[in-house]
Protein backbone atom coordinates (compact mmCIF):
# COMPACT_ATOMS: atom_id res chain seq x y z
CA UNK A 1 0.00 0.00 0.00
CA UNK A 2 2.70 2.41 1.09
CA UNK A 3 4.77 1.56 -1.93
CA UNK A 4 1.85 2.23 -4.23
CA UNK A 5 1.33 5.65 -2.68
CA UNK A 6 4.98 6.47 -3.20
CA UNK A 7 4.66 5.21 -6.72
CA UNK A 8 1.67 7.46 -7.40
CA UNK A 9 3.35 10.48 -5.90
CA UNK A 10 6.32 9.75 -8.12
CA UNK A 11 4.04 9.51 -11.14
CA UNK A 12 2.47 12.82 -10.27
CA UNK A 13 5.85 14.49 -10.02
CA UNK A 14 6.86 13.00 -13.37
CA UNK A 15 3.65 14.21 -14.88
CA UNK A 16 4.10 17.75 -13.62
CA UNK A 17 7.66 17.72 -14.90
CA UNK A 18 6.59 16.48 -18.31
CA UNK A 19 3.70 18.90 -18.60
CA UNK A 20 5.77 21.86 -17.52
CA UNK A 21 7.39 21.54 -20.89
CA UNK A 22 4.22 21.95 -22.90
CA UNK A 23 3.35 20.24 -26.14
CA UNK A 24 1.73 22.59 -28.58
CA UNK A 25 -1.80 21.59 -29.52
CA UNK A 26 -2.63 23.42 -32.70
CA UNK A 27 -6.02 24.87 -33.32
CA UNK A 28 -7.04 24.04 -36.87
CA UNK A 29 -7.00 26.98 -39.25
CA UNK A 30 -10.37 28.64 -39.99
CA UNK A 31 -10.14 27.73 -43.67
CA UNK A 32 -9.61 24.05 -42.86
CA UNK A 33 -12.49 24.12 -40.38
CA UNK A 34 -14.77 25.67 -42.96
CA UNK A 35 -13.81 23.00 -45.49
CA UNK A 36 -14.57 20.39 -42.83
CA UNK A 37 -17.98 21.88 -42.10
CA UNK A 38 -19.20 21.70 -45.71
CA UNK A 39 -19.55 17.89 -45.80
CA UNK A 40 -21.56 17.98 -42.56
CA UNK A 41 -23.98 20.47 -44.09
CA UNK A 42 -24.26 18.47 -47.31
CA UNK A 43 -24.50 14.93 -45.95
CA UNK A 44 -26.04 15.34 -42.51
CA UNK A 45 -28.08 18.44 -41.70
CA UNK A 46 -29.66 18.83 -45.13
CA UNK A 47 -31.08 15.30 -45.26
CA UNK A 48 -34.70 16.47 -45.53
CA UNK A 49 -33.85 18.24 -48.80
CA UNK A 50 -32.39 15.28 -50.61
CA UNK A 51 -34.10 12.24 -49.11
CA UNK A 52 -36.26 11.38 -52.13
CA UNK A 53 -36.25 8.86 -54.95
CA UNK A 54 -36.60 11.23 -57.93
CA UNK A 55 -34.83 12.34 -59.97
CA UNK A 56 -32.96 9.07 -60.35
CA UNK A 57 -29.34 9.60 -61.33
CA UNK A 58 -27.56 6.90 -63.35
CA UNK A 59 -30.30 4.55 -62.23
CA UNK A 60 -29.80 5.32 -58.53
CA UNK A 61 -32.41 6.90 -56.27
CA UNK A 62 -31.54 10.53 -55.56
CA UNK A 63 -30.93 9.87 -51.85
CA UNK A 64 -28.27 7.30 -52.75
CA UNK A 65 -26.66 9.27 -55.58
CA UNK A 66 -26.37 12.41 -53.43
CA UNK A 67 -24.25 10.98 -50.59
CA UNK A 68 -22.15 8.97 -53.07
CA UNK A 69 -21.37 12.18 -54.91
CA UNK A 70 -20.54 13.87 -51.61
CA UNK A 71 -18.12 11.13 -50.62
CA UNK A 72 -15.96 12.27 -53.53
CA UNK A 73 -16.53 15.95 -52.75
CA UNK A 74 -15.66 15.34 -49.08
CA UNK A 75 -12.38 13.86 -50.15
CA UNK A 76 -11.75 17.00 -52.20
CA UNK A 77 -12.69 19.25 -49.25
CA UNK A 78 -10.25 17.39 -47.01
CA UNK A 79 -7.58 17.62 -49.66
CA UNK A 80 -8.09 21.39 -49.60
CA UNK A 81 -7.91 21.35 -45.79
CA UNK A 82 -4.74 19.27 -46.03
CA UNK A 83 -3.16 21.85 -48.32
CA UNK A 84 -4.23 24.65 -45.97
CA UNK A 85 -2.80 22.89 -42.92
CA UNK A 86 0.51 21.93 -44.50
CA UNK A 87 0.97 25.43 -45.92
CA UNK A 88 0.49 26.75 -42.41
CA UNK A 89 2.85 24.15 -40.89
CA UNK A 90 5.51 25.15 -43.38
CA UNK A 91 5.07 28.82 -42.54
CA UNK A 92 5.30 28.05 -38.80
CA UNK A 93 8.35 25.87 -39.34
CA UNK A 94 10.05 28.64 -41.26
CA UNK A 95 9.25 31.22 -38.59
CA UNK A 96 10.65 29.31 -35.61
Amino acid at each position, binding site marked *: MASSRVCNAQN*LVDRQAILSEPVPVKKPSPLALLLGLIPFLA*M*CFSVALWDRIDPMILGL*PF*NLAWPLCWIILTSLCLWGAYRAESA*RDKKDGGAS
Partner: protein
Amino acid sequence: MSSRAVSLAMILAVVGLGVTIGFLAGVRRKMSLEQWTVGGRGFGTVLMFLLMAGEIYTTFSFLGASGWAYSRGGPTLYILAYITLAYVVSFFILPEIWELGRKYKLQTQSDFFNMRYGNKYLAAFVCVTGVTFLVPYLQLQITGLGIIVNVASFDGIGRTPAMVISVVLLAAFVFASGIRAVAWISVLKDVLMVVAALSIGIGIPYIHYGGIGPMFSALAQARPAHLTMPGATADLGHTWYISTVLMTSLGFCMWPHGFGATFTAKSPDTLRRNAVVMPLYTITLAFIFFVGFTAVLMVPGLPDGDLALLIIVRQSFPAWFLGVVGGAGALTAMVPASILILTAATLFAKNLCRPIFAPAMTDNQVAKLARAMVVVLSVISLYFATHSSATLVSLLLLGYAGVTQFFPGVVLGLYWKRVTMPGVFAGIIAGVATVAFLVLTHQDPFFGWSAGFVALCINFVITAILSLLTPVMQPAFEQTETN
Protein backbone atom coordinates in the same frame (compact mmCIF):
# COMPACT_ATOMS: atom_id res chain seq x y z
CA MET B 1 -18.69 -33.21 -53.73
CA SER B 2 -21.90 -31.77 -52.36
CA SER B 3 -22.50 -28.02 -52.53
CA ARG B 4 -22.15 -27.88 -48.79
CA ALA B 5 -18.70 -29.46 -48.82
CA VAL B 6 -17.56 -27.21 -51.68
CA SER B 7 -18.60 -23.96 -50.03
CA LEU B 8 -17.25 -24.93 -46.60
CA ALA B 9 -13.95 -26.09 -48.15
CA MET B 10 -13.65 -22.77 -49.97
CA ILE B 11 -14.18 -20.84 -46.71
CA LEU B 12 -11.54 -22.93 -44.95
CA ALA B 13 -9.11 -22.39 -47.82
CA VAL B 14 -9.54 -18.61 -47.71
CA VAL B 15 -9.25 -18.42 -43.92
CA GLY B 16 -6.29 -20.81 -44.01
CA LEU B 17 -4.51 -18.58 -46.50
CA GLY B 18 -5.12 -15.61 -44.21
CA VAL B 19 -3.81 -17.41 -41.13
CA THR B 20 -0.69 -18.52 -43.05
CA ILE B 21 0.04 -14.94 -44.02
CA GLY B 22 -0.50 -13.85 -40.43
CA PHE B 23 1.75 -16.59 -39.12
CA LEU B 24 4.56 -15.66 -41.52
CA ALA B 25 4.27 -12.03 -40.42
CA GLY B 26 4.21 -13.05 -36.75
CA VAL B 27 7.26 -15.32 -36.50
CA ARG B 28 9.70 -12.86 -37.96
CA ARG B 29 9.51 -10.51 -34.99
CA LYS B 30 9.64 -11.23 -31.31
CA MET B 31 6.75 -9.58 -29.54
CA SER B 32 7.11 -7.52 -26.40
CA LEU B 33 3.98 -6.27 -24.69
CA GLU B 34 4.34 -2.95 -26.43
CA GLN B 35 4.70 -4.64 -29.77
CA TRP B 36 1.76 -6.86 -29.05
CA THR B 37 -0.44 -3.87 -28.40
CA VAL B 38 0.85 -1.14 -30.68
CA GLY B 39 3.06 -3.08 -33.06
CA GLY B 40 5.91 -0.81 -32.06
CA ARG B 41 5.59 2.76 -33.21
CA GLY B 42 6.21 3.43 -36.88
CA PHE B 43 3.55 1.95 -39.11
CA GLY B 44 3.75 3.86 -42.38
CA THR B 45 0.88 5.05 -44.49
CA VAL B 46 0.32 1.65 -46.04
CA LEU B 47 0.02 -0.41 -42.86
CA MET B 48 -1.89 2.36 -41.14
CA PHE B 49 -4.27 2.56 -44.08
CA LEU B 50 -4.82 -1.17 -43.84
CA LEU B 51 -5.48 -1.08 -40.10
CA MET B 52 -7.95 1.76 -40.46
CA ALA B 53 -9.51 0.22 -43.55
CA GLY B 54 -9.99 -2.89 -41.44
CA GLU B 55 -12.44 -0.69 -39.62
CA ILE B 56 -14.63 -0.04 -42.63
CA TYR B 57 -15.04 -3.56 -43.85
CA THR B 58 -16.25 -5.48 -40.87
CA THR B 59 -19.16 -7.89 -40.68
CA PHE B 60 -21.15 -4.78 -39.88
CA SER B 61 -20.71 -3.26 -43.32
CA PHE B 62 -20.84 -6.60 -45.12
CA LEU B 63 -23.83 -8.38 -43.60
CA GLY B 64 -25.19 -5.59 -41.39
CA ALA B 65 -25.43 -2.86 -44.03
CA SER B 66 -27.07 -5.15 -46.57
CA GLY B 67 -29.28 -6.52 -43.80
CA TRP B 68 -30.56 -3.06 -42.98
CA ALA B 69 -31.02 -2.19 -46.66
CA TYR B 70 -33.20 -5.28 -46.80
CA SER B 71 -35.11 -4.99 -43.54
CA ARG B 72 -35.15 -1.20 -42.88
CA GLY B 73 -34.57 0.44 -46.28
CA GLY B 74 -33.77 4.17 -46.38
CA PRO B 75 -32.31 4.55 -42.86
CA THR B 76 -29.36 2.35 -43.87
CA LEU B 77 -28.01 5.33 -45.83
CA TYR B 78 -26.75 6.79 -42.56
CA ILE B 79 -23.80 4.39 -42.92
CA LEU B 80 -22.44 6.15 -46.03
CA ALA B 81 -22.68 9.53 -44.33
CA TYR B 82 -21.29 8.62 -40.96
CA ILE B 83 -18.14 6.87 -42.17
CA THR B 84 -17.34 9.74 -44.52
CA LEU B 85 -17.93 12.40 -41.87
CA ALA B 86 -15.99 10.38 -39.30
CA TYR B 87 -12.88 10.89 -41.42
CA VAL B 88 -13.54 14.63 -41.44
CA VAL B 89 -13.52 14.57 -37.63
CA SER B 90 -10.42 12.37 -37.59
CA PHE B 91 -8.62 14.83 -39.86
CA PHE B 92 -8.84 17.45 -37.15
CA ILE B 93 -8.30 15.54 -33.92
CA LEU B 94 -6.15 12.47 -34.61
CA PRO B 95 -2.96 14.36 -35.58
CA GLU B 96 -3.13 16.27 -32.28
CA ILE B 97 -3.71 13.08 -30.31
CA TRP B 98 -0.74 11.52 -32.09
CA GLU B 99 1.53 14.43 -31.12
CA LEU B 100 0.59 14.00 -27.48
CA GLY B 101 1.07 10.26 -27.77
CA ARG B 102 4.60 10.65 -29.00
CA LYS B 103 5.47 13.27 -26.42
CA TYR B 104 4.10 11.37 -23.42
CA LYS B 105 4.61 7.82 -24.71
CA LEU B 106 0.88 7.10 -24.63
CA GLN B 107 -0.32 3.74 -25.86
CA THR B 108 -4.01 3.72 -25.04
CA GLN B 109 -7.02 5.92 -24.56
CA SER B 110 -6.83 5.50 -20.78
CA ASP B 111 -3.23 6.75 -20.88
CA PHE B 112 -4.53 9.86 -22.59
CA PHE B 113 -7.14 10.54 -19.90
CA ASN B 114 -4.62 9.77 -17.16
CA MET B 115 -2.12 12.22 -18.62
CA ARG B 116 -4.60 15.00 -19.33
CA TYR B 117 -6.66 14.81 -16.15
CA GLY B 118 -4.17 13.22 -13.75
CA ASN B 119 -6.63 10.82 -12.16
CA LYS B 120 -6.13 7.08 -12.32
CA TYR B 121 -9.73 6.34 -11.38
CA LEU B 122 -11.00 8.36 -14.31
CA ALA B 123 -8.53 6.50 -16.52
CA ALA B 124 -9.72 3.17 -15.11
CA PHE B 125 -13.35 4.16 -15.63
CA VAL B 126 -12.63 5.10 -19.24
CA CYS B 127 -10.98 1.72 -19.62
CA VAL B 128 -13.91 -0.23 -18.14
CA THR B 129 -16.43 1.71 -20.24
CA GLY B 130 -14.38 1.20 -23.39
CA VAL B 131 -14.03 -2.54 -22.81
CA THR B 132 -17.75 -2.84 -21.97
CA PHE B 133 -18.85 -1.21 -25.20
CA LEU B 134 -16.34 -3.19 -27.24
CA VAL B 135 -18.30 -6.30 -26.28
CA PRO B 136 -21.34 -5.57 -28.51
CA TYR B 137 -18.92 -4.87 -31.39
CA LEU B 138 -17.20 -8.16 -30.74
CA GLN B 139 -20.54 -9.91 -30.39
CA LEU B 140 -21.47 -8.50 -33.80
CA GLN B 141 -18.43 -10.11 -35.44
CA ILE B 142 -19.11 -13.47 -33.80
CA THR B 143 -22.78 -13.36 -34.81
CA GLY B 144 -21.65 -12.58 -38.36
CA LEU B 145 -19.24 -15.51 -38.40
CA GLY B 146 -22.03 -17.74 -37.15
CA ILE B 147 -24.35 -16.57 -39.94
CA ILE B 148 -21.66 -17.18 -42.58
CA VAL B 149 -20.87 -20.72 -41.47
CA ASN B 150 -24.57 -21.47 -41.04
CA VAL B 151 -25.61 -20.27 -44.52
CA ALA B 152 -22.54 -21.65 -46.29
CA SER B 153 -23.19 -25.09 -44.80
CA PHE B 154 -26.69 -24.92 -46.34
CA ASP B 155 -28.03 -24.92 -42.78
CA GLY B 156 -26.15 -28.16 -42.01
CA ILE B 157 -24.30 -26.48 -39.13
CA GLY B 158 -26.67 -24.68 -36.79
CA ARG B 159 -25.96 -21.09 -35.87
CA THR B 160 -24.93 -21.75 -32.27
CA PRO B 161 -22.39 -24.51 -33.04
CA ALA B 162 -21.18 -22.31 -35.90
CA MET B 163 -20.55 -19.49 -33.44
CA VAL B 164 -18.72 -21.80 -31.03
CA ILE B 165 -16.45 -23.02 -33.84
CA SER B 166 -15.86 -19.41 -34.88
CA VAL B 167 -14.84 -18.29 -31.40
CA VAL B 168 -12.35 -21.13 -31.04
CA LEU B 169 -10.86 -20.23 -34.43
CA LEU B 170 -10.80 -16.61 -33.45
CA ALA B 171 -8.96 -17.12 -30.16
CA ALA B 172 -6.42 -19.37 -31.91
CA PHE B 173 -6.00 -16.71 -34.57
CA VAL B 174 -5.34 -14.02 -31.97
CA PHE B 175 -2.76 -16.09 -30.08
CA ALA B 176 -0.99 -17.06 -33.28
CA SER B 177 -0.68 -13.51 -34.59
CA GLY B 178 -0.56 -10.00 -33.13
CA ILE B 179 -1.37 -6.62 -34.50
CA ARG B 180 1.30 -6.65 -37.20
CA ALA B 181 0.05 -9.96 -38.51
CA VAL B 182 -3.50 -8.71 -38.39
CA ALA B 183 -2.57 -5.69 -40.51
CA TRP B 184 -1.11 -7.97 -43.16
CA ILE B 185 -4.10 -10.29 -43.19
CA SER B 186 -6.11 -7.10 -43.77
CA VAL B 187 -4.49 -6.91 -47.21
CA LEU B 188 -5.94 -10.23 -48.27
CA LYS B 189 -9.23 -9.46 -46.59
CA ASP B 190 -9.62 -6.07 -48.27
CA VAL B 191 -8.71 -7.30 -51.74
CA LEU B 192 -11.18 -10.15 -51.40
CA MET B 193 -13.82 -7.85 -49.96
CA VAL B 194 -13.58 -5.26 -52.72
CA VAL B 195 -13.70 -7.97 -55.38
CA ALA B 196 -16.61 -9.69 -53.66
CA ALA B 197 -18.54 -6.44 -53.10
CA LEU B 198 -18.15 -5.32 -56.70
CA SER B 199 -18.97 -8.68 -58.23
CA ILE B 200 -22.07 -9.36 -56.15
CA GLY B 201 -23.13 -5.70 -56.12
CA ILE B 202 -23.15 -5.64 -59.90
CA GLY B 203 -23.85 -9.33 -60.55
CA ILE B 204 -26.87 -9.89 -58.36
CA PRO B 205 -29.01 -6.97 -59.63
CA TYR B 206 -27.94 -8.00 -63.16
CA ILE B 207 -28.97 -11.64 -62.70
CA HIS B 208 -32.38 -10.77 -61.27
CA TYR B 209 -33.29 -7.51 -63.02
CA GLY B 210 -30.79 -6.99 -65.83
CA GLY B 211 -28.95 -4.18 -64.03
CA ILE B 212 -28.76 -1.83 -61.06
CA GLY B 213 -30.99 0.85 -62.65
CA PRO B 214 -33.82 -1.56 -63.51
CA MET B 215 -33.59 -3.02 -59.99
CA PHE B 216 -34.14 0.38 -58.37
CA SER B 217 -36.92 1.23 -60.85
CA ALA B 218 -38.72 -1.99 -59.95
CA LEU B 219 -38.28 -1.34 -56.23
CA ALA B 220 -39.38 2.30 -56.58
CA GLN B 221 -42.51 1.01 -58.31
CA ALA B 222 -43.31 -1.81 -55.91
CA ARG B 223 -42.18 -0.37 -52.58
CA PRO B 224 -41.40 3.36 -52.95
CA ALA B 225 -41.56 4.00 -49.20
CA HIS B 226 -38.81 1.45 -48.60
CA LEU B 227 -36.20 3.57 -50.37
CA THR B 228 -36.57 6.76 -48.31
CA MET B 229 -36.58 7.40 -44.57
CA PRO B 230 -38.10 6.11 -42.33
CA GLY B 231 -38.31 3.20 -44.80
CA ALA B 232 -39.78 0.05 -43.30
CA THR B 233 -39.53 1.46 -39.77
CA ALA B 234 -41.80 3.75 -37.79
CA ASP B 235 -39.29 5.92 -35.99
CA LEU B 236 -36.05 6.11 -38.00
CA GLY B 237 -36.78 9.41 -39.75
CA HIS B 238 -34.71 12.49 -40.45
CA THR B 239 -34.25 13.44 -36.79
CA TRP B 240 -32.91 9.97 -36.15
CA TYR B 241 -30.66 10.22 -39.19
CA ILE B 242 -29.09 13.54 -38.17
CA SER B 243 -28.64 12.58 -34.53
CA THR B 244 -27.24 9.15 -35.40
CA VAL B 245 -24.84 10.47 -38.02
CA LEU B 246 -23.53 13.07 -35.55
CA MET B 247 -23.29 10.61 -32.68
CA THR B 248 -21.45 7.97 -34.73
CA SER B 249 -19.15 10.26 -36.70
CA LEU B 250 -18.01 11.97 -33.49
CA GLY B 251 -17.67 8.60 -31.79
CA PHE B 252 -15.68 6.93 -34.58
CA CYS B 253 -12.27 8.03 -33.31
CA MET B 254 -13.26 7.23 -29.72
CA TRP B 255 -13.22 3.45 -30.11
CA PRO B 256 -10.41 2.26 -27.85
CA HIS B 257 -8.84 0.26 -30.70
CA GLY B 258 -9.02 3.16 -33.18
CA PHE B 259 -7.62 5.54 -30.60
CA GLY B 260 -4.80 3.10 -29.87
CA ALA B 261 -4.13 2.52 -33.57
CA THR B 262 -3.60 6.27 -33.98
CA PHE B 263 -0.40 5.98 -31.96
CA THR B 264 0.94 3.38 -34.40
CA ALA B 265 0.99 5.89 -37.27
CA LYS B 266 4.37 7.13 -38.43
CA SER B 267 3.50 10.82 -38.46
CA PRO B 268 0.54 13.17 -38.08
CA ASP B 269 0.81 13.72 -41.80
CA THR B 270 0.05 10.03 -42.35
CA LEU B 271 -3.17 10.46 -40.38
CA ARG B 272 -4.21 13.54 -42.35
CA ARG B 273 -3.50 11.91 -45.69
CA ASN B 274 -5.48 8.85 -44.60
CA ALA B 275 -8.43 11.05 -43.78
CA VAL B 276 -8.30 12.55 -47.28
CA VAL B 277 -8.25 9.18 -49.04
CA MET B 278 -10.36 6.95 -46.81
CA PRO B 279 -13.80 8.40 -47.63
CA LEU B 280 -13.36 7.13 -51.21
CA TYR B 281 -13.08 3.63 -49.83
CA THR B 282 -16.66 3.94 -48.56
CA ILE B 283 -18.01 3.98 -52.11
CA THR B 284 -17.80 0.19 -52.36
CA LEU B 285 -20.36 0.01 -49.54
CA ALA B 286 -22.95 1.21 -52.06
CA PHE B 287 -22.50 -2.10 -53.87
CA ILE B 288 -23.30 -3.95 -50.66
CA PHE B 289 -26.50 -1.88 -50.44
CA PHE B 290 -27.42 -2.92 -54.00
CA VAL B 291 -27.40 -6.56 -52.89
CA GLY B 292 -29.62 -5.82 -49.89
CA PHE B 293 -32.08 -3.83 -52.02
CA THR B 294 -32.21 -6.58 -54.65
CA ALA B 295 -33.08 -9.07 -51.93
CA VAL B 296 -36.14 -7.06 -50.85
CA LEU B 297 -38.31 -8.34 -53.71
CA MET B 298 -36.34 -11.50 -54.55
CA VAL B 299 -36.13 -13.25 -51.17
CA PRO B 300 -38.91 -11.62 -49.15
CA GLY B 301 -39.86 -12.69 -45.65
CA LEU B 302 -36.50 -13.73 -44.20
CA PRO B 303 -36.68 -14.06 -40.41
CA ASP B 304 -33.45 -12.11 -40.02
CA GLY B 305 -32.40 -9.34 -42.42
CA ASP B 306 -28.73 -10.02 -41.74
CA LEU B 307 -29.10 -13.28 -43.69
CA ALA B 308 -30.21 -11.43 -46.85
CA LEU B 309 -26.83 -11.02 -48.55
CA LEU B 310 -25.67 -14.59 -48.14
CA ILE B 311 -29.04 -16.13 -48.95
CA ILE B 312 -29.32 -14.25 -52.23
CA VAL B 313 -25.69 -15.06 -53.09
CA ARG B 314 -26.49 -18.71 -52.42
CA GLN B 315 -29.49 -18.52 -54.77
CA SER B 316 -27.67 -16.68 -57.52
CA PHE B 317 -24.22 -18.25 -57.71
CA PRO B 318 -22.57 -21.69 -57.63
CA ALA B 319 -21.46 -23.12 -54.26
CA TRP B 320 -17.76 -22.41 -54.74
CA PHE B 321 -18.50 -18.72 -55.17
CA LEU B 322 -20.64 -18.72 -52.04
CA GLY B 323 -17.56 -20.18 -50.37
CA VAL B 324 -15.31 -17.37 -51.63
CA VAL B 325 -17.78 -14.73 -50.47
CA GLY B 326 -18.18 -16.58 -47.17
CA GLY B 327 -14.41 -16.81 -46.74
CA ALA B 328 -13.98 -13.12 -47.44
CA GLY B 329 -16.79 -12.48 -44.99
CA ALA B 330 -15.15 -14.71 -42.37
CA LEU B 331 -11.87 -12.77 -42.61
CA THR B 332 -13.89 -9.58 -42.50
CA ALA B 333 -15.18 -10.69 -39.13
CA MET B 334 -11.97 -12.25 -37.79
CA VAL B 335 -9.57 -9.38 -38.53
CA PRO B 336 -11.56 -6.68 -36.74
CA ALA B 337 -12.56 -9.14 -34.01
CA SER B 338 -8.92 -9.90 -33.22
CA ILE B 339 -8.11 -6.19 -33.09
CA LEU B 340 -11.04 -5.70 -30.73
CA ILE B 341 -10.07 -8.62 -28.51
CA LEU B 342 -6.40 -7.61 -28.36
CA THR B 343 -7.32 -4.05 -27.45
CA ALA B 344 -9.87 -4.98 -24.84
CA ALA B 345 -7.62 -7.59 -23.22
CA THR B 346 -4.55 -5.35 -23.00
CA LEU B 347 -6.62 -2.40 -21.77
CA PHE B 348 -8.09 -4.55 -19.05
CA ALA B 349 -4.71 -5.84 -17.90
CA LYS B 350 -2.62 -2.74 -18.35
CA ASN B 351 -4.97 0.14 -17.63
CA LEU B 352 -7.33 -1.41 -15.13
CA CYS B 353 -5.78 -4.28 -13.17
CA ARG B 354 -2.25 -3.02 -12.80
CA PRO B 355 -2.85 0.62 -11.78
CA ILE B 356 -5.85 -0.06 -9.56
CA PHE B 357 -5.39 -3.51 -8.04
CA ALA B 358 -1.80 -4.65 -8.45
CA PRO B 359 0.76 -1.91 -9.06
CA ALA B 360 3.57 -4.42 -8.50
CA MET B 361 2.73 -6.51 -11.59
CA THR B 362 5.60 -7.03 -14.00
CA ASP B 363 5.16 -6.52 -17.73
CA ASN B 364 5.38 -10.26 -18.09
CA GLN B 365 2.48 -10.83 -15.71
CA VAL B 366 0.47 -8.15 -17.47
CA ALA B 367 1.01 -9.91 -20.79
CA LYS B 368 -0.10 -13.22 -19.24
CA LEU B 369 -3.21 -11.62 -17.79
CA ALA B 370 -3.97 -10.04 -21.17
CA ARG B 371 -3.74 -13.45 -22.80
CA ALA B 372 -6.13 -14.90 -20.24
CA MET B 373 -8.50 -12.00 -20.90
CA VAL B 374 -8.59 -12.91 -24.60
CA VAL B 375 -10.27 -16.17 -23.64
CA VAL B 376 -12.60 -14.56 -21.09
CA LEU B 377 -13.76 -11.86 -23.52
CA SER B 378 -14.33 -14.37 -26.30
CA VAL B 379 -16.53 -16.45 -24.02
CA ILE B 380 -18.51 -13.42 -22.80
CA SER B 381 -19.15 -12.23 -26.37
CA LEU B 382 -20.09 -15.75 -27.41
CA TYR B 383 -22.59 -15.87 -24.56
CA PHE B 384 -24.21 -12.62 -25.66
CA ALA B 385 -24.14 -13.65 -29.32
CA THR B 386 -26.00 -16.86 -28.64
CA HIS B 387 -28.55 -15.13 -26.38
CA SER B 388 -29.43 -12.09 -28.46
CA SER B 389 -31.51 -11.39 -31.51
CA ALA B 390 -30.40 -7.80 -32.09
CA THR B 391 -29.51 -6.88 -35.67
CA LEU B 392 -25.84 -6.34 -36.49
CA VAL B 393 -26.42 -2.63 -37.07
CA SER B 394 -28.18 -2.09 -33.74
CA LEU B 395 -25.30 -3.84 -31.95
CA LEU B 396 -22.85 -1.41 -33.49
CA LEU B 397 -25.08 1.55 -32.64
CA LEU B 398 -25.11 0.38 -29.02
CA GLY B 399 -21.31 0.30 -28.97
CA TYR B 400 -21.17 3.75 -30.55
CA ALA B 401 -23.62 5.19 -28.03
CA GLY B 402 -21.13 4.14 -25.33
CA VAL B 403 -17.76 5.13 -26.78
CA THR B 404 -19.00 8.45 -28.13
CA GLN B 405 -19.27 9.56 -24.49
CA PHE B 406 -15.47 9.97 -24.49
CA PHE B 407 -15.70 12.68 -27.13
CA PRO B 408 -16.21 15.69 -24.79
CA GLY B 409 -13.36 14.56 -22.53
CA VAL B 410 -10.97 14.15 -25.44
CA VAL B 411 -11.86 17.21 -27.49
CA LEU B 412 -12.33 19.63 -24.61
CA GLY B 413 -9.14 18.19 -23.15
CA LEU B 414 -7.31 19.13 -26.31
CA TYR B 415 -8.75 22.59 -26.86
CA TRP B 416 -10.32 23.97 -23.67
CA LYS B 417 -8.05 25.00 -20.78
CA ARG B 418 -10.93 25.36 -18.37
CA VAL B 419 -12.09 21.72 -18.49
CA THR B 420 -11.60 19.86 -15.21
CA MET B 421 -11.35 16.26 -14.08
CA PRO B 422 -14.61 16.27 -12.04
CA GLY B 423 -16.45 17.78 -15.00
CA VAL B 424 -15.25 15.11 -17.42
CA PHE B 425 -15.73 12.29 -14.92
CA ALA B 426 -19.31 13.32 -14.14
CA GLY B 427 -20.05 13.93 -17.82
CA ILE B 428 -18.98 10.45 -18.88
CA ILE B 429 -20.87 8.83 -16.00
CA ALA B 430 -24.02 10.78 -16.88
CA GLY B 431 -23.65 9.92 -20.58
CA VAL B 432 -23.14 6.22 -19.99
CA ALA B 433 -25.97 6.11 -17.44
CA THR B 434 -28.31 7.79 -19.94
CA VAL B 435 -27.39 5.27 -22.63
CA ALA B 436 -27.88 2.37 -20.24
CA PHE B 437 -31.24 3.70 -19.08
CA LEU B 438 -32.64 4.46 -22.54
CA VAL B 439 -31.42 1.20 -24.06
CA LEU B 440 -32.49 -1.05 -21.19
CA THR B 441 -35.95 0.55 -21.07
CA HIS B 442 -36.24 0.19 -24.88
CA GLN B 443 -36.46 3.91 -25.52
CA ASP B 444 -33.90 4.06 -28.33
CA PRO B 445 -34.73 6.11 -30.41
CA PHE B 446 -35.96 8.55 -27.77
CA PHE B 447 -38.77 10.62 -29.36
CA GLY B 448 -37.06 10.12 -32.70
CA TRP B 449 -33.57 11.01 -31.39
CA SER B 450 -30.79 8.49 -31.21
CA ALA B 451 -30.21 7.53 -27.55
CA GLY B 452 -26.45 7.92 -27.87
CA PHE B 453 -26.90 11.47 -29.13
CA VAL B 454 -29.24 12.43 -26.29
CA ALA B 455 -26.65 11.05 -23.86
CA LEU B 456 -23.84 12.91 -25.61
CA CYS B 457 -25.70 16.22 -25.24
CA ILE B 458 -26.31 15.61 -21.52
CA ASN B 459 -22.65 14.64 -21.19
CA PHE B 460 -21.46 17.86 -22.86
CA VAL B 461 -23.68 20.07 -20.71
CA ILE B 462 -22.65 18.41 -17.45
CA THR B 463 -18.96 18.44 -18.38
CA ALA B 464 -19.10 22.14 -19.21
CA ILE B 465 -21.11 23.25 -16.16
CA LEU B 466 -19.15 21.21 -13.65
CA SER B 467 -15.85 22.28 -15.21
CA LEU B 468 -16.79 25.92 -14.73
CA LEU B 469 -17.78 25.23 -11.10
CA THR B 470 -14.60 23.38 -10.13
CA PRO B 471 -11.07 24.74 -9.99
CA VAL B 472 -8.53 23.68 -12.62
CA MET B 473 -6.11 21.32 -10.86
CA GLN B 474 -4.15 20.02 -13.79
CA PRO B 475 -2.11 21.87 -16.37
CA ALA B 476 -3.65 21.87 -19.83
CA PHE B 477 -1.88 21.07 -23.04
CA GLU B 478 -0.58 24.36 -24.32
CA GLN B 479 -2.55 25.99 -27.09
CA THR B 480 -0.78 27.62 -29.96
CA GLU B 481 -2.69 30.29 -31.75
CA THR B 482 -2.00 30.36 -35.44
CA ASN B 483 -3.48 32.39 -38.16
